[in-house]
């Protein structure tokens, strides 16, 4: 469950492990010497001002970006050393929810949900499914869980913003990963929809003992929905603490002290 990881889990392989990781884009340092690990069942909030390196960090964790220095282990594997096929097998286990949803507007919702299955499908199967959707029950079940089963045949661009984020969540559900990453999942939603989405994300991790790492701008959710908080500023790790030990002053400091 979402509560600081399973007892004794420190002995198990961590889901994510970063060792002295730095990322530079040309001259600009996005992350500098970051070290931490995340164990199964933890709910980790990444907080910090814009440009702190939260998105870069999440890209490292799902293998769409590689560290300039240091090593990133996901499920015990050093991503930078894997061949494409092996990398994809690891990436299947990591689901990502994005701020911009990344839906394809002129495809039906069912195809947008099935994005999550593409890691498991061969290319011919994926191509066939575009004409006659496969694994409909799974997609329908996921849409039921996020509350919009009736939209399965709608075009994605006909949905409201909140509904689109639900489709993105359903996509992660059908992917059935060990860990979920969320990059500012609620920053384009209104307060009511934000609570819904955050509740759903937490419910996912609690019911399915999944791991969650999310960057959040709205700090109040850190106290209500997460077990651990990692503070970043200017690409450096400022603090890494259980939420029970997180104080308002620490958050204030993180955002306002240069």
């Amino acid at each position: 469950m979402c509560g600081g990881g399973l007892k004794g889990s420190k002995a198990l392989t961590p889901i994510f492990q970063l060792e002295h990781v730095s990322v530079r884009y040309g001259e600009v340092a996005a992350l500098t010497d970051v070290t931490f690990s995340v164990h199964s069942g933890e709910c980790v909030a990444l907080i910090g001002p814009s440009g702190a390196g939260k998105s870069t960090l999440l890209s490292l964790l799902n293998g769409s970006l590689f560290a300039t220095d240091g090593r990133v282990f996901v499920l015990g594997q050093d991503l930078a050393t894997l061949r494409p096929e092996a990398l994809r097998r690891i990436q299947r286990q990591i689901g990502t929810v994005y701020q911009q949803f990344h839906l394809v507007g002129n495809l039906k919702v069912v195809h947008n949900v099935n994005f999550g299955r593409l890691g498991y499908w061969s290319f011919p199967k994926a191509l066939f499914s575009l004409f006659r959707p496969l694994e409909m029950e799974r997609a329908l079940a996921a849409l039921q869980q996020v509350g919009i089963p009736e939209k399965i045949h709608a075009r994605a661009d006909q949905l409201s913003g909140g509904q689109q984020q639900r489709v993105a969540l359903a996509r992660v559900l059908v992917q059935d990963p060990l860990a979920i990453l969320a990059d500012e999942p609620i920053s384009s939603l209104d307060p009511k929809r934000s609570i819904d989405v955050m509740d759903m994300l937490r419910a996912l991790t609690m019911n399915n003992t999944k791991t969650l790492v999310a960057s959040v701008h709205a700090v109040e959710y850190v106290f209500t929905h997460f077990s651990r908080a990692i503070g970043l500023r200017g690409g450096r790790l400022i603090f890494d603490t259980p939420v029970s030990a997180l104080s308002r002053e620490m958050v204030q400091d993180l955002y306002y002290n240069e």
Partner: protein
Amino acid sequence: MAEIAATRRPTLRLRLLRARWPWGIAFLVALIWALGVAGAFDRNLVNARGFRLFSRFWAAALSPTLDPTFLAVVIDATFQTLSYAVLGIAVSIVIGVVGGLLSAEIGWRAIFPPRRNAPFALYRIPFVIVRAILVIPRAIHEVILGLFLLNIFGLHPLTAILAIGLHFGAVTAKVFSEILDETPQDTFDAIRAAGAPPLSAFFYGLLPRALPNLTAYGFYRFECAIRSSAILGVIGAGGLGYQIYLSLQSINYNELWTLFYALILLSGLTDLWSSLIRRSMGSTGTRLCVDVACGDPTGGEVPRPPVQTGFAFRLRRWSFPLFGVLSLFSLLYVRPDPRILTAPRTQTLFAEFVADLFPPRLDANMLETLLRAAEATLAMSIIAMTIAAIGGMVLAFPAARNIALPGGLGGRGGRAAQAVGIGVLLVTRTLLLVLRAIPASIWALVCLFILYPGIFPGAVALGLYTVGILGRLMSETVENLDERPLRAIKAGGATRSVVFLYGVLPSAIPQFVSYIFYRWEVCIRETVIVGLVGAGGFGRLLAEQQAAFDYRAMAATLIGIMALTFAVDLASNTFRRALNR
């Protein structure tokens, strides 16, 4: 500090670069030079004795031949022209999709992901090879391809179909690959980050997003193909163009006009279909930079979401099946026998033809001839574009729905005024349609009634034809203008003329200029069309060389055409960038 000083007092060089007047002077010099080459200053251009024939030609417009035997010929020719265009486009789409997928950077990168820290990206090798293969058919106008294919296939449906298919296919491949590479890749990346194979991610995350643009472009090419099909007819590939040429040669103007009306109707219906589809997709699909890389591929349009209701939407949904039915019909109508491709005779002819082309004759004599042809071609294109630019800009506004129609900028309240608006729109649009539906080579022959032979009638013909195309493109641009600033100016209580001067013109002119330069590049290639009927330049040279069976000289001319085309593309690009700065 230095920068601030520089903005306060620009150097002379900077001021010259920013100013518009040097461009105007350069243009005037070029125009005067072109008129000089055309002989405007040292001989009489107008042949007054031809006016009687000329007026007879126009009078025949009112009494087209309507006897049943001839009508049967006209209908048959119309279906032929349509079939060549449809099948040509079908071939070009196959080439375009395959070539486009193969020459899109994103596809290769998906298949051979660049290794981390690798010094050289492997995917660039096949990518560069495919792009290089497509350069040549793109540089050769379909009429020249048609001329060559006529030598091999003779009067066979495949001549026109392959001429259109090969040239349009190569152009389409380039544009498709550009559209694919410009499509936002965020979703593609997101799907891959979830462990999907690159090809699956491509078909789910990228292709569907690119599809509306690809379709819009495909439909734009379809209306171009109808015009090409008619033009190819004039050089002997059959169909309406061929019949028009025959009627013109036998001075039967009443028959000629029946054929004209058929062509105008065919062209008009295709244009209407195409523009409805493209408008409902929220994109004009007329890519400005078809053959050259340039910075602003959308031509500065404001993207609109595709329409989901109404007639245009339903038509769009039925357009793919409709096009399938048309293709099937065309196939059955002209029955292009593909066995001719593998026939021994074709192979012998093709081998002989290729052997005859080499080595291209590039001696000093030939170089001088080529230079003169290049001079004539350039002069012809400058005169033609001057006519086209002025005509296009004048006619674009009355032809635009948001200007002329009620509720538009120029539309007024009263019922009579509204009727005038609709009338103006219809008349201008019909005029533009007639100008572009009739092949430029036919306009050239018509011009020869009242103009002495030479570059000038060719330039006027090409200019008139281009007015039809440019006027339509420009009016679509006007219809796609961002309306928000216009409404803001109107809301301030401005009169119509002020809105026009301060809102419409400033946002339309830069796009017009882009279109003019883009069309100039096309025009250089199209001089061949009028050249073939004797107007001078490279086209005339080709026709003469072909008549003399001098294939090595033809090969040299071809090289000359390509060199001039590339030079003009380069110049046009430079001008466009400089002017848009």
